[in-house]
Structure formats: structure tokens, C-alpha cells
């Protein structure tokens, strides 16, 4: 006997015959969904999986799927949940999910949602969860957006009919069409918001970059036909102001917008890619996320070098695992150093020099950090130090602390950790009078100790400084700081501030 029998072919033949019938054989579909009339192939695959096997693989598949969806919709509309077994409901809903998106299925699934009578489970799976899956896969408009958003934000009351995790919410959003009239387009704005929400939920996790990349990949996988995801995601990140770490975890931060007739390239690019060639570029046309990504034009003479930098930095960024922003910049600096050394060895001194300039620039940024406290009770001096810091270091946010009360409020208030503290001290201070404590009354050393002992500020570098006419600092507080290995910087009224700038660089580079 010729041994060519397969169970799949048997199901396919049976289904082809029954789906040709008009109206569709609902009774037969019901039988299949409860596992009857299927080939003797065991019980590992669920009936809905056998029904899917029954769909042909060739050109008839689409029409057969539609026909099956119509039959399933008729079955769902004709039966009340209470009158149908859990097995049939489970298999109906999973079949609906697998066939989606189907126009015919959307309405009966919505009706089931609105009836709110579905209960029970099959093989340990809650049938409501199956309904949520079927709804996700059969969306024709954005009417379920509030449901997915509530799941994303984790704010679904326990008694709500449809439950779901943030991952379910994301899935619901990314399968949602842009509108009823554009069913083949993703709802980009909703996806942008959803990814921001995911970033928020992941922000405290060590593996946040990897997890966020998974979510982004899921978005891309849901609409594989779309070819401008890189641009879409950048624009959504900008629009919804994603956190920096999430933005820098995107798969590509280098998007070619246009090649001009001259060969120059107009592009959107991560700013660090441009550091080695920055001085040769015109200022950016547009900036995104506070300048982390810029739109600019790169002249033909630099495109080859640009490609080289992109080939090095983009994979590094896109695979970076450590959670902090600083760690990514440190990794970039390290890579730039490698490139400088390689070019030096190869005799390409000009390129090596460009990399070295980029490293210097990056180190300035890396070492300064982003938040600096200036503990200073003299308004004029506070303005002066603030000016020194902000005009010499990019992207720094300063906080001036003018009094002990303000200092206490910040330290005890659980605020964000600063990256550096500039602490005004008095070169000739005396022990404080009880009940009359001011910053000048030798409070500097006390503050430094408090900062070192506080859970939030422990380890934050502190630079003590004094304002004095005399270049040589003296006094008990000066000696205390020197004993701690923190010799204070002296700012004279005439000084050019170089000593403070250099100290900031030195201290924070060491900390980084």
C-alpha cells in the first residue's frame, strides 16, 4: 500500500468540502471546535490548530480564511457564551485571534465584550484572556485604545471584565490601526505614547535597555512591511519626550534623509557620531531630544569618514546593555580612543587628531555630569559660579542653594542625586555660635560630612571653594578640607576661573 496519508491532508480535504457549502456548515464548525471529526492524531494540538492546518497553503488561502472567519462570526453571533462549552469557546476565540484581522469577526467579539458574561477557563487559560487576544488581533478602529492604555499604565481595577498586563496593552496598541479608513497603517502616535509608558515602567530595571529593545522589536515585527520605522520611532521619541536611555536604545540613530546633487548627505544622526567632524559642519538644521540627535548636512568630503564612524558607534550604542546614560558615553569614549590609537598607528594623523578632539569634547561632557549644586549664600558669587559652570560645560543643570534651610530641604527631601557639589567655604571662619548657624560659620565641613553620610549623596564629588583677595588660603576649615584630601579652590575677584574649571574637570573625570 502506498503510504502517503497525512492527517493534515485529511483535515484539509474535509474542510475544503465543508467551507464550499453555502451557507457555511456551522454545525460542522462547532464539531471541529470541540475536537470532533478530526483525524486520529492525538491531543497535543488543540482543535483550532487543526482547523488552521485545514487551510490550504496556496492561492486559495485568503478566500478560505475569509470564509472560515465568516462562519466563525456567524457561530459566535448565534450562540450565547453560557450555552457553549469552555472547549468550544477557547477554540473559537483562539481561531478568531489566529485569523485576524477579519472584518467579520470584529463585531461579534465586541458584542461578547459588551455582554460581559464570559467566564471560565479551558486547560487553565482564562477565557477572558482569550477574548482580549482575539480583540487585539481583530481591531478595525481605535475604539479599544482606552482599554490598552489602561493595561499599559497598570491601572485596571481588579473587578474590570477585561484584565491585562502592560505587555498586553502594548500589543493591543501596536495592532491597532491608525484609523478605520487606514487599516493598514499603524497608530504611530499611540505607539509613541505606549513606548514612553513602557520606558517609564522599565526605568528602575538593570536590564531596561534590553527590555525596551524587545518592545521596539515587537512594534517593528507587528508591521514588517513598514520601511521607515527608524524615522518614525525617532519622531515619536521626540514628540513624547522619551527618557534619554530609551531613545538611545533605539535600533538606529542614523537616518539618511537625502543625498544632494553634490553628493552631500542630509541626515538625522546621533550627536556623538558627529563629534569627530563637528568643526567642519554647519550648525544643525533641527535638533531632537535636547540635541541628542541632530539634523544636519555632511559634505561629500566627509561622508567616507562618517561611514567609518557610524560603522563603529552605531553597533556599540544599539547593543549597549548597562542602564545609565553615563555608561554609554564612557563606552563611546573608549571606542573613540581605540579608533584614535588605530589611526595613529596607521599613520592617519589627521583622523587620529579628529578622534582625539571628539574624546576631549566627550570627556568634558561625561565628566561634568548633568546636575551641579552650588552651595553659596552670596547672591553675586552664586551668579558668578553659575556662569562659570554653564558657560564652560554643555547640558549642565545647576541648582543654587542659598541657605542652610534650602540645603536641608534638598538633602533630606529625597531629591535627585547631584553629579557634583560646589561648596563655598570661608577661609577665616570661627566656630559657629549656637542658634546662629550660617553657611559662613564653618558649616562647609559639616555639609561635606553630611553629604558623605547621606544615602542619596554619598559618593558625590565635592569641590570646596573660597572667595578671597588672598591667593593663599588659611584657617581651620581650610585645614579640615585639606586633611580630607579636598584642598579648596581659591577664587579671587580678578582670577580667570581656570582653577575652578580645571578642578571640576579633574574631579569629575576621576569620578566617572
Amino acid at each position: 500500500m502506498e503510504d502517503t496519508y497525512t492527517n493534515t491532508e485529511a483535515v484539509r480535504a474535509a474542510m475544503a468540502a465543508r467551507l464550499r457549502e453555502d451557507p457555511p456548515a456551522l454545525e460542522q464548525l462547532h464539531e471541529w471546535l470541540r475536537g470532533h471529526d478530526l483525524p486520529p492524531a492525538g491531543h497535543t494540538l488543540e482543535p483550532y490548530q487543526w482547523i488552521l492546518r485545514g487551510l490550504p497553503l496556496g492561492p486559495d488561502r485568503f478566500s478560505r480564511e475569509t470564509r472560515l472567519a465568516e462562519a466563525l462570526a456567524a457561530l459566535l453571533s448565534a450562540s450565547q457564551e453560557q450555552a457553549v462549552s469552555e472547549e468550544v469557546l477557547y477554540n473559537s476565540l483562539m481561531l478568531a485571534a489566529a485569523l485576524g484581522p477579519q472584518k467579520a469577526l470584529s463585531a461579534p467579539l465586541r458584542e461578547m465584550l459588551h455582554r460581559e458574561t464570559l467566564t471560565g477557563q479551558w486547560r487553565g487559560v482564562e477565557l477572558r484572556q482569550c477574548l482580549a487576544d482575539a480583540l487585539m488581533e481583530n481591531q478595525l478602529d481605535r475604539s479599544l485604545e482606552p482599554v490598552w492604555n489602561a493595561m499599559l499604565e497598570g491601572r485596571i481595577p481588579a473587578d474590570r471584565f477585561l484584565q491585562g498586563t502592560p505587555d498586553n496593552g502594548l500589543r493591543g496598541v501596536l495592532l491597532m490601526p491608525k484609523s478605520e479608513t487606514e487599516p493598514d497603517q499603524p497608530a504611530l502616535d499611540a505607539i509613541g505614547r505606549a513606548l514612553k509608558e513602557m520606558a517609564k515602567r522599565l526605568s528602575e530595571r538593570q536590564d531596561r535597555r534590553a527590555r525596551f529593545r524587545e518592545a521596539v522589536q515587537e512594534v517593528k515585527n507587528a508591521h514588517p512591511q513598514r520601511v521607515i520605522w527608524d524615522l518614525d520611532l525617532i519622531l515619536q521619541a521626540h514628540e513624547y519626550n522619551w527618557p534619554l536611555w530609551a531613545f538611545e536604545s533605539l535600533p538606529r540613530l542614523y537616518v539618511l534623509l537625502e543625498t544632494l546633487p553634490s553628493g552631500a548627505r542630509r541626515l538625522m544622526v546621533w550627536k556623538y557620531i558627529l563629534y569627530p567632524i563637528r568643526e567642519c559642519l554647519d550648525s544643525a538644521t533641527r535638533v531632537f531630544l535636547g540635541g541628542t540627535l541632530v539634523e544636519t548636512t555632511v559634505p561629500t568630503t566627509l561622508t567616507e569618514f562618517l561611514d567609518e564612524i557610524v560603522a563603529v558607534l552605531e553597533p556599540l550604542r544599539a547593543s549597549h546593555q548597562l542602564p545609565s546614560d553615563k555608561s554609554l558615553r564612557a563606552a563611546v569614549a573608549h571606542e573613540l580612543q581605540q579608533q584614535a590609537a588605530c589611526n595613529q598607528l596607521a599613520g592617519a594623523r589627521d583622523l587620529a587628531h579628529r578622534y582625539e578632539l571628539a574624546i576631549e569634547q566627550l570627556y568634558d561632557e561625561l565628566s561634568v555630569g548633568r546636575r551641579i549644586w552650588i552651595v553659596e549664600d552670596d547672591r553675586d558669587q552664586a551668579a558668578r559660579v553659575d556662569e562659570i559652570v554653564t558657560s564652560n560645560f554643555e547640558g549642565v543643570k545647576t541648582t543654587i542653594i542659598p541657605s542652610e534651610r534650602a540645603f536641608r530641604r534638598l538633602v533630606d527631601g529625597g531629591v535627585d542625586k547631584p553629579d557634583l557639589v560646589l561648596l563655598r567655604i570661608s577661609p577665616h571662619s570661627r566656630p559657629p555660635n549656637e542658634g546662629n548657624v550660617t553657611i559662613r560659620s564653618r558649616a562647609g565641613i559639616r555639609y561635606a560630612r553630611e553629604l558623605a553620610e547621606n544615602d542619596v549623596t554619598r559618593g558625590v564629588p565635592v569641590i570646596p571653594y573660597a572667595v578671597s583677595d588672598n591667593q593663599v588660603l588659611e584657617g581651620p576649615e581650610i585645614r579640615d578640607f585639606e586633611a580630607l584630601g579636598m584642598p579648596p579652590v581659591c577664587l579671587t575677584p580678578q582670577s580667570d576661573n581656570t582653577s575652578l574649571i580645571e578642578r571640576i574637570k579633574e574631579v569629575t573625570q576621576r569620578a566617572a
Partner: protein
Amino acid sequence: MPEPVFGRYGDLWGDQVLRDWQDSGNEALRAMAVNTRYDGRVTPAREAAFRAFAPQVSDKTLRNAFKDYFEARVRHERNPDFLEPLNQENIATLYRRPVSLARVVILNGLVPVYQAARQTNEVFRRFPTRPTEETVGDWLDNELRDRPEATRRSFVEATLQEMGRARLRQPFQPAWATLWDHFLLYASLTPEHWLEALGITWEARDPGNPEPLWVVVLKYSVGEAGTLVRPTQLDAGWNAAHFPTPKELPAKNGERPMELPADRGGHPVDYGPDVPGDFIPAEFIHAEITHSPDHFHRIGRIEDAQPGGLATRRRVHHLRLRKFYVKEFDMFDWMPSHCTE
């Protein structure tokens, strides 16, 4: 010439339907008919329980009775029929000493387990919302392929934990196992052969482009498994991949027929290469248990699990059984050769 039903020549319940299946030209139906006729390990009491699912015998009711009986009295029962007194004759008693078992789990077949776990277990959070065979295969590849051994291990451990939880929500009987020493004859071979050792077949959806299968080998003791039982067709349900074994050796020279002890187990339909000495592994079932992480032995990926045609597999298995039992009796006396030719 009359043929038995469940090994007995009584009222021949369902005889005409079985005859029709044998003559249908449909290899799977023919296999089910032959198994039903010759599986004398289905006790009269179990047969009666089974018959209740098809009070009026017809092609349709008999087909569905296998499925319905299996779901109602085996699959979801905390006390499945195979562990009840009505199946007493098939309960193995030999293995009181420490003996290890081997079980092979196909991860692709655990869809409901992963679906339920998706909501509560981070490891499975990306399980697809439309779990077709294709998307499940892709998901497993994504989670396991080219991943370090430690990642795979923790995935399997999480799977075992979730299988245990699922079992508490709704039993999922039975578990099929072989003796570890028997499995060792296959263990050094590729993962395809692990399935062969347990007689597990997986027909590809699209033979030209089969989905990958991820299979896990578990090793555990008889003590952990509890009672071992020699399986019957009713424990396999509506499944033509099963092949029964005789209950007793036919009578010779006027002697009484000699019963084959249940301790020997059934025999999985081994569709792989011959193992040394024409050996055929034993096959048992037991109640589903919660596997501990220690039970995990190996994991493997199968590119193409095409087991070959059903008729060929059955014919070869029948001949192997005959060779295996040649010193004791002629297998064809129990099930004539035409049943698999």
C-alpha cells in the same frame, strides 16, 4: 473471518464500523480499527465505561467517543481511569527499587501552559497572542536558539514550574515515560531519536517547511512518578500513533494462556534506526506530576521531525515486536500480519 474487539470475541460491539475503517483506505482509521480490535488490555470494565460515550454505534459516534472518553475520564481527571480499580490489571508493580524514568516533552505542544503563564511569569511575557504553530515555533526559537545554556535551563525550569501550576488548575493526564536505561540507548543520538524512544510523532504542518520543535528530556525516579501503568488505546485517545501490546501469550499445546505482566510495559512505536540487539524500549504512563528543576536533563531542537508514513511505521513496529517476543510466542498469533500489511 471474525476479528475481536478489545481482544475479545463477545458481542463484537462496533464491529461493522471497525470493518468499515479497515476497508476505508484511510491509514489512520485503519490503524485505529486494528488497535481497537487487538488491545485486549482494555478491561471489560473500562470497555463498558468507554461504550457509554457511544450508546448508538456509528462511524461518527465511535470516532468522537475516543475523544470524549479521553477528555472526560483521562485527560482532566484527578483520578483518571488508568489509575482506577477498573484498570487494575495494567498497573505495574515491579519497580519498587530505585529506577529512573525518562520523559520527553515537546515545548511546542504546551500552548495553554504558556498562555496562562504569560500573564504572571515574566519569562513568558512575549508568548504570542495568536499562537499558531508558526508563531509558537518562532517564539521558541527566539527564546532558546543561540542562547547560553544557563538561559535555556532557566527557561525550561520556568516551564516545568508552570506545567506544575497548570496541573493544579486542571489536570493534564497522562504522562508517557520509558525506563531511563532504555532511553540511554537513544540519548547519545540526535533529538529526533529522543522522540523515537517514546514513540512520539509530530506531523509537520507543511512538510516542505516544517516548524522547528524544541524537546526537553526529563529524568526522574519511579518514586516521584507514583504508580506506573501499562498504557492502552483508551489512554492514548483518538490517536493512531499508538500500538497496543498483547495482554497474554496465546495458549500452546493445551496449556492455559500465560499473562504478560504489566511490569514489562507497552512498547512505543519506534520509527527510528534499529537499536542494538533489536531491543524495544518499555512504555508506561503515570499521573502528571510537578517536575522539579532537578529533573531537567537535556534540551534539543529538531529541524524536521518527519516520522515517515504511518503504515510503514506500524508494519516495521509489528515486525520488531515479533522479533522481540520470538522466544515467547509468535506475535502474529496475537495480531495477524495482515493487520499492518
